[in-house]
């Protein structure tokens, strides 16, 4: 399998802010790859570097072996980018917008494919509507359609489901998953962690311009989080002394992160011996949100010198 996107030691500064601090990633052809991180982590800057919208201060980026600076025409032809901002050209209808976008990529008479995209994104009835008259969700779908007019082998979606209703989101993901099955490489940034968990085979987490975690989704879930046990104590009692420091209080529940099931019995015994009644108890498998919080928290602690490396 060849490399779809290669990012090597990319650095970018905006004034005093170091937006990217030596980011290296390799994304294989056919992957569904997630790029996660809090606001300001550098996700959009990294994607903008790939798209040629931002010029990196150092490092190299290439798409299917084509350098995004030296061979920018080839690289851009191979990329389809859905920008994060909800932008549109108010002068044109949906179909005009897509025909124009096809022309920018050197494609004429693209109506068959445009019709297919419109149908898949449930936009057929709006094809001749002016962009200004579309709802936010529909504008977002047109942005997706624009990124696909030239059938790019690598598709980058920068938070494509922000402001899109649930039904539409499902439809969009089915379409993108189909494209992925057909061989397109998909790179996704999202704030919806459950989305990344459901869709992405591999995930990189960014923080302050650095990659702080990079692994398959299943490995990340297994490595970091394990299970959590949340306990609601009777009469809002405090935790007995030996357990303090092991749990965090969240919405009236004490949450324990478990490395294994063997930890459960001793924990309950300690509660019983301390005379704590239990109103409610839940055992949940960790999700990506836990991983995310764990990694980001670990990074914070590492920066302040408290805890050892959790980001492997």
């Amino acid at each position, binding site marked *: 399998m060849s490399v779809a996107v290669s990012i090597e030691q990319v650095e970018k500064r905006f004034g005093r802010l170091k937006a990217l601090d030596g980011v290296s990633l390799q994304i294989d052809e056919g992957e569904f790859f997630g790029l996660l991180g809090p606001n300001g982590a550098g996700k959009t800057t990294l994607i903008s570097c790939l798209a*040629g919208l931002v010029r990196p201060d150092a490092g190299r980026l290439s798409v299917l072996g084509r350098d995004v600076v030296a061979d920018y025409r080839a690289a851009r032809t191979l990329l389809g*980018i859905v920008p994060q901002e909800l932008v549109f*050209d108010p002068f044109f209808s949906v179909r005009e917008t897509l025909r*124009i976008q*096809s022309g920018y990529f*050197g494609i004429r008479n693209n109506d068959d494919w445009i019709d297919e995209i419109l149908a898949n994104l449930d936009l057929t009835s709006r094809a001749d509507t002016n962009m200004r008259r579309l709802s936010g969700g529909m504008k977002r779908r047109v942005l997706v359609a624009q990124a696909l007019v030239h059938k790019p082998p690598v598709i980058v979606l920068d938070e494509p489901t922000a402001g899109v209703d649930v039904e539409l989101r499902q439809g969009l993901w089915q379409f993108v998953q189909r494209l992925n099955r057909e061989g397109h490489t998909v790179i996704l940034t999202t704030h919806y962690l459950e989305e990344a968990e459901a869709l992405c085979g591999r995930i990189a987490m960014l923080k302050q311009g650095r990659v702080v975690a990079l692994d398959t989704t299943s490995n990340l879930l297994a490595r970091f989080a394990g299970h959590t046990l949340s306990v609601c104590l009777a009469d809002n009692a405090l935790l007995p002394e030996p357990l303090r420091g092991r749990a965090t209080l969240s919405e009236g529940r004490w949450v324990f992160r478990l490395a294994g099931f063997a930890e459960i019995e001793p924990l309950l015994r300690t509660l019983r011996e301390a005379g704590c009644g239990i109103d409610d108890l839940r055992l949940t498998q960790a999700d990506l949100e836990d991983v995310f919080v764990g990694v980001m928290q670990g990074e914070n602690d590492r920066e302040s010198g408290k805890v050892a490396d959790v980001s492997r």
Partner: protein
Amino acid sequence: MIGFRTLLYKELLRFWKVGFQTVAAPVLSALLYLLIFSHVLDEHVLVNGVRYAAFLIPGLVMMSLVQNAFANSSSSLIQSKITGSVVFVLLPPISYVEFFLAYVVAAVLRGLMVGLGVLVVTSWFAPLTYVAPLWILAFAILGGGILGAFGMIAGIWADKFDQLAGFQNFLIMPLTMLSGVFYSIHSLPQFWQQVSHLNPVFYMIDGFRYGFFGVSDVPPETSLIVVGASFLVVSVATLMLLRSGYKLRS
């Protein structure tokens, strides 16, 4: 090549969709200038042996042409920058030379369309001659090209509409209004004649007018050299700006 043609088509479609504002309105403005000035002055003034209304028409045509060429590229760029839709032309494999050519050709074509409109509606009011049509065409295209390219610089530089309006009102308007549209610079005091010679728009209008009447304030060859050189300088500056990615690619 298809990229360039599509971008050009998009730019033409953009102003054509709002043609009432981008073509009809400037034609009407020019017509009003002609009605007012020719009403007041036509009976009394001869310029270089030409009746005032006839003298005024080529000036108005050229003024409208260059102002609209500037308005086209500058407003298109700032609108797409402010709405963010400029990203649609930055993501595809379009080179900066294609980018430049598409915007400048669109600006020239809008300028020519407005200029032709002004010529058609104003020529009812005074008999015109067309002594040297090629000179007319050369100055029209070069003039539109200079202001079209200049409009790109302004559109790229400006971050807000009021910055662009400042550019338009405090630079383009004085340069065009004080370029000999309404008078021959020979009627000016010596000092202001010298100042007018520093204004490239003066040469555009003087050379353009030569094409109609065969008379001009300076030899048309001189005007062509100045206008051609100005086009070259502004074009190179715009291309350098585009290549550097200034305010378009950070």
